[in-house]
């Protein structure tokens, strides 16, 4: 997923779910939006919150908490929608907050530690330790894959 192999660092957007920090490469991020009205789309997976009007484009929204099997929270001021593009798919991720853009050295990325029985494990491509922060890198392909 990390396409910039020859570079020694990648720029990522850092966002928060519960008490953990996650990262998505900036190259896949189209923008970060504040929470807006979401139209529910009936008969879809539970984590598909619905669709929004993103400047004239109807964009599906995925609740990442729901996707990772985390307990839901009330919407707060800090909740953001991160618009992500992967190939011809454009979706928005609802996250608790999006706080940072940082460069992480490629060699700091390690394979995910073995954790058993956590749903989100399947979506993790690696972890990176920056100072005292632990960033979890997401596997976008798997997060977006509807058939499992």
């Amino acid at each position, binding site marked *: 997923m990390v396409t910039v192999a020859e570079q020694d660092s990648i720029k990522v957007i850092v966002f928060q779910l519960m008490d953990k920090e996650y990262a998505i490469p900036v190259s896949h991020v189209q923008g970060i939006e504040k929470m807006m009205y979401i139209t529910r789309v009936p008969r879809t997976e539970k984590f598909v919150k619905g*669709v929004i009007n993103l400047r*004239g484009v109807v964009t599906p929204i995925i609740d990442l908490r729901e996707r990772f099997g985390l307990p839901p929270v009330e919407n707060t001021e800090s909740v953001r929608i991160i618009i992500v593009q992967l190939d011809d*798919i454009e979706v928005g991720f609802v996250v608790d907050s999006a706080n940072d853009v940082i460069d992480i050295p490629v060699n700091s990325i390690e394979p995910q530690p073995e954790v058993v029985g956590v749903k989100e494990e399947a979506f993790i491509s690696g972890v990176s330790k920056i100072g005292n922060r632990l960033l979890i890198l997401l596997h976008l392909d798997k997060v977006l894959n509807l058939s499992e």
Partner: protein
Amino acid sequence: MEMNQQYLDMFIEESKEHLQACSDLLLELEKNPNDISIVNEIFRSAHTLKGMAATMGFEDLADLTHKMENVLDAIRNEKIKVDSNLLDIVFESVDHLEAMITDIDSGGNGKRDVSEIVEKLKAIEAGKPIPSSTPVQQEIAADVAVEEEISAGRYLIYDEYDITVLQQSKEQGFNAYEITVSLRQDCLLKAARVYMVFQVLEKCGEVIKSFPTVENLEEEQFDQNFQVAFISKDSAEEIQKKVSKVSEIENVDVVPLTDEMVRKSSREEIVKKERQQQELEKVTQAPAQEKKEEPAKKETNASKHSAHSKTIRVSIERLDILMNLFEELVIDRGRLQSIATDVKHGELTETVERMSRTMGDLQNIVLTMRMIPIETVFNRFPKMVRSLSRELNKKINLDIIGAETELDRTVIDEIGDPLVHLIRNSVDHGIESPDVRKAKGKPEEGTVTLRAYHSGNYVFIEIEDDGAGINKEKVLKKAIERGIVTKESALSLTDKQINELIFESGFSTAEKITDVSGRGVGLDVVKTTIQSLGGSISIESQQDVGSKFSIQLPLTLSIISVMLVEIEKEIYAIPLSSIIETSIIKKSEILNAHNQKVIDFRGKVVPLIFLDEVFEVPRSEAYDDEYQSVVIVRKGDKLAGLVVDSFIGQQEIVLKSLGNYLKNIFAISGATILGNGQVALIIDINALMK
């Protein structure tokens, strides 16, 4: 060779036109094998095509066209007789040419192994000991001559058509000239000067041709010089004086155009003589019509200058952008309308209303701009029917009515395959073989009629044949065999319902699988495609008399009228095209029939569909109202009542897709953006009523 994309596009476009002309004319030739004038026309198209292909450096294309031309030449000189077998081979070559053009269009180099067909063409040609190689040499000689001319500073190249025009004008007492005009180095408005020169010239004669072409001149795509071929009764000096009066012109050179300058090959002379009479009529009587008949010439023929300023070619991408921008406007209009209703400001409401009217007009224009005649789809069918009927040993005549009917481009793009399928179906299953037809007392030649027409906001396309019709017993038997209907329910089916069975998936009545149909793709695919375009298909059939498939399609796909309804806090849009009416019913009027709630609607029992249940709308509290709002919708002959909380109103909306992530959502065909910026989902009635 430098391959400018712009010229390449033009080349592809024109080549397609020429090939289409070739196949149309070949079909005509088959009907009138002795009409040499048709051969001439084909020859001319092929010749132009060859020239263009050679210029663009597509050797294989030029080569095959050349071989085809030789055969045509032999036909023209009555060295070979026209028959179906010969035409088969010519058709085959046209197919090859088409494939090459398609390849070039998709970015290929147009290379293709054509040795087999070339051999065949050569064989036909060689069947006659006439010096068929002579024209070839002349052709090469002519090409060389052209090159020499270019190097000698003369740019005008005359084709057969121009030569004929020149010849005739001379006979009528006109003089032909080649005029070279050089503009001053500091000339600012070159196009304007060109225009003035043309105006002066057109006052005293007629411009036959120009180099560069008129389009390029208008776009100032030339240096300081341009050349025109010009006919007039005035003398060279007079013309020179007149043209020199236009300011910013450095030099005008008027040279009488001699026959030697024009004549390039004896072959073209033959054509000229044969065509003289008919060309004369065309030139003098119907210049407008001529433009249609000779699309190739329109780029180069300056005499149609006036016609050019009336139409322009606009790329589809630009029209799509225009459409997208317009859609944005429609959304904003909706927003303004809802604001105006909220604030109740007189002047604002008035302005918004005015704007809405103007936008209505604008919408009509934008939509009609995207319309193209269905001819673009229809014109490939004559050839297809011909080859099918030969393959199946049937005699079939294809009648096309209403090819000029216009449809939105998106619909045109999609409708081709379903139509191919239906026509194949008619030809294969519909029309009987000649001896069967004879036995039934029908003419040996079957007729398939393809008809298109507008009616209201819809376009209708009908495929009618006078063939065997649908064998109801056979259809029923098959349907029961395949488990589409049960034996019991089969008894109660009406004739119409039996006919509709052939659209069910997993149904194919062809007794033996032929090459033509029965490839495992049934009519159900046709039906699905048409429904996805927002249309419908129905069938009428009478055994031994024939069948008629009718397709109904919306004029456009991007902007539709809907009724907005509300369920709890959610807003849904129902396409107006499937709504019969709305009504408010008392709860006590709802009846129960086999676990299905129904109402009595004007004497008909109509099942109710509770949208809040179907769409699993979360209710904050149980909804219970004495009165229920119901939208009566229709799918074919079936009716259903959609129960909603309340009606909001009718609105024009822009259809938006839900994107690539959310696909195949039950009973939702798309989305739209409402005046308040929120997204509303559009209900797919067809899926809902399955």
